[in-house]
């Protein structure tokens, strides 16, 4: 499985990478929404899933998801939102922008992996 993970915090990026790579999941990282799109466009094959933070400079997580979903070729990629908020309206916003699901930070590594496996159908 290959996952594109987007977060402006180096700490969170490192943690996501560590968590995923321990499970044998290949991880590609990006710093913010704009960078995420650049990285996504530059990948030779689509990632199996995308993880994105919400609060980021330049382009936030919702903006990123909307931009991704506008492109038919990316329409099917599952996108999970990593958010520190558990408020329901945040989830609704995530949903409205086209997110597949959400994970609350600080994330439970096992739960993140299970969620990724669920949305990608990959082991």
């Amino acid at each position: 499985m290959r996952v594109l993970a987007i977060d402006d915090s180096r700490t969170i990026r490192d943690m996501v990478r560590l968590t995923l790579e321990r499970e044998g999941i290949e991880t590609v990282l990006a710093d913010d929404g704009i960078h995420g799109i650049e990285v996504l466009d530059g990948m030779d094959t689509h990632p199996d899933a995308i993880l994105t933070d919400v609060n980021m400079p330049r382009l936030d997580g919702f903006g990123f998801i909307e931009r991704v979903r506008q492109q038919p070729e990316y329409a099917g990629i599952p996108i999970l939102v990593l958010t520190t908020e558990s408020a329901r309206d945040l989830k609704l916003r995530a949903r409205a922008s086209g997110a597949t699901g959400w994970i609350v930070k600080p994330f439970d590594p096992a739960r993140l992996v299970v969620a990724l496996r669920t949305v990608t159908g990959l082991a």
Partner: protein
Amino acid sequence: MDPMDAIRATYFEECAELLEVLEDGLLSLQAGTPDADTIDAVFRAVHSIKGGAAAFNLGLLVGFAHEFETVLDALRNGELKGGSDAFAVLLRASDTLGDLVSAVRDDLPVDAPDTRDLARLLSGGTPSSAGGGFVPVMIDLGQDMNGPVRPDVRRVWTILFEPLPELLGSGNEPLYLFRALEVLGRIEVTAIETDLPTLDRLDPDVPRLRWSVRLTPSAPDLTETEIEAVFEFAVDLCILEVSAMQDGDRPATPIAPFAPDIAERGDVAPPETAAPATVAAPSGPATIRVDLTRVDRLVDLVGELVISQSVLAQGLAQAGLDHRSEAIATLEDLQQLTRDIQDSIMSIRAQPVKPLFQRMTRIVREVSTATGKDIHLVTEGEATEIDKTVVERLTDPLTHMVRNAIDHGIEDPAERVRVGKSAIGVVRLTARQKSDRVVIEVSDDGRGIDRARVLEKAITRGMVEAGSILDPAEIDRLLFKPGLSTVTEISSLSGRGVGMDVVQRAIRDLSGTISVRSETGKGCTISISLPLTLAILDGMIVRASGHHMVLPLSSIVETQSADTARTEMLSAGQEVVLMQDRFVPMLDLGQCMGFPVGSAVGGQDDDEAALLFVQPENGGIYALRVDAIEAQRQVVIKGLSDNFGHIPCVSAATILGNGQVALIVDPAGTARHAGLRPETHEHLATEARAS
């Protein structure tokens, strides 16, 4: 290192950067009109600190960051109007956050910080969200909100799953949901095809199939909640009915075996089987993070390279090669390359002084609050870059200088008004590059040095003989002597047993020089001059009294052959020499260094004798007589102070191409040691002209 430890280290590094962004942003918001981008950046900084802290379970940090974030959020959405009082509170909160980060990083015991000021800010805006300690809660979405019901009989579950049209657009895939269900037990999936339209009416984006899943759990106590958790992300995008039957019941719908291939989609990449690897982002950020020890290793290697090159140059010179020979030309290329490599490596270590200056804004705030003096801090040249080590080691000296400036230099507001100054004192912090040195100055518009008092103090302390008459510059220099404090009661701020002598030692340890200028009633400026790099120096190798010595090239203004020089001997026994149209003092380098006159090994060849006109930092030009100028070369600086302490006239040592050790001359120290003072220059010149 445990990977988590490495991430923890990264987190604290990131915190330092974020705190800088935070303070920077708050200061610029305080200074100008609020702009949304800056407010966003400030909010994000605190938000990111909180996020990371939560990941490491740093409850205290999470709690405070949360309070802070709440206030910043109010500022962001306009509920809180940022007046100067508000920013004072926010800046204090950023200081507190910084302290908290440091304490947590260093595992120091800390109490929960006071958040009342923050809460008070909010009570003007959104009272409901203020106050109360925030307790970080980890929300596990897999947990049941209604309380688990644990049946004691194994049941078979039937799950009816009907996707709504939006489901596929959200990236959720029914097949994968079924696979996730499979983890819970054995499943049989039946597609319900009753609603399928005819082909010409089929919209491929709208799901028309419904499924019925029969789940035989592997764990006997599987709950409805655990099943629903699988569909968590699809909650609003489907109709889900989960029902339990006693084993043996059969659902009404016919069961067909689950055939995964029918639902396989073409738009998802096939499962990767390759070994996991982190793929470099194609257009990643243009920076990489490198361990400092690796850079330092490079710096050392370049030093060795410079030495080897000197050895090679000397070898070639001794071989008597023609100046136009290819070997010499290649050597010159090599020297240029070495210099380029050196510059490149030094630029890796170079850091802007901005973070250093930012730290001072905090010191100013603290001292200003403690002394009740209103201070306006002006910073200039924040982008000036200097070696990382220097930036780090300047914090303490600079802190001390800034404290001094406010505590001792700037008058009380009432006194300022009385002498016709603005009640707000100004402290100016500037940095600029001057050839291969960086000059950092701290100046204030206070009362200036009270020289009479300094002299009196020095006399009572026995540092100066009673009745001595010293010129102003000499008195100012007394400030750098150990044991001189002009404040009668030791102030809690500046008088921490650290005097300007300690500052001077710290600056000297960095191969820097420090000087002071003061004007009574107008203010005082302390100037620090530091080498751009601590490792390599462009030097002129000279011979004096039979010893090789190196002078920093940057201090040499001009050179001249000694036999054409016009010299005069003045009444005071001071020799002067004509430089262009004026006389400057002349010293003999060998004598200055304490070698006996005429101690040269072998016959002294006067044909080679030369004069170097040198100008130390903030000092007058003088001439140094040497026996010969040998070469102009880069030398690797090897510090002496660790082993020998401070040596007058000498700043460091180096190893020459032939393996010999040579001392590096300190032009300012030499002038001081020989008793030359800027004031005496004028006097000498006048006397020489008259003679």
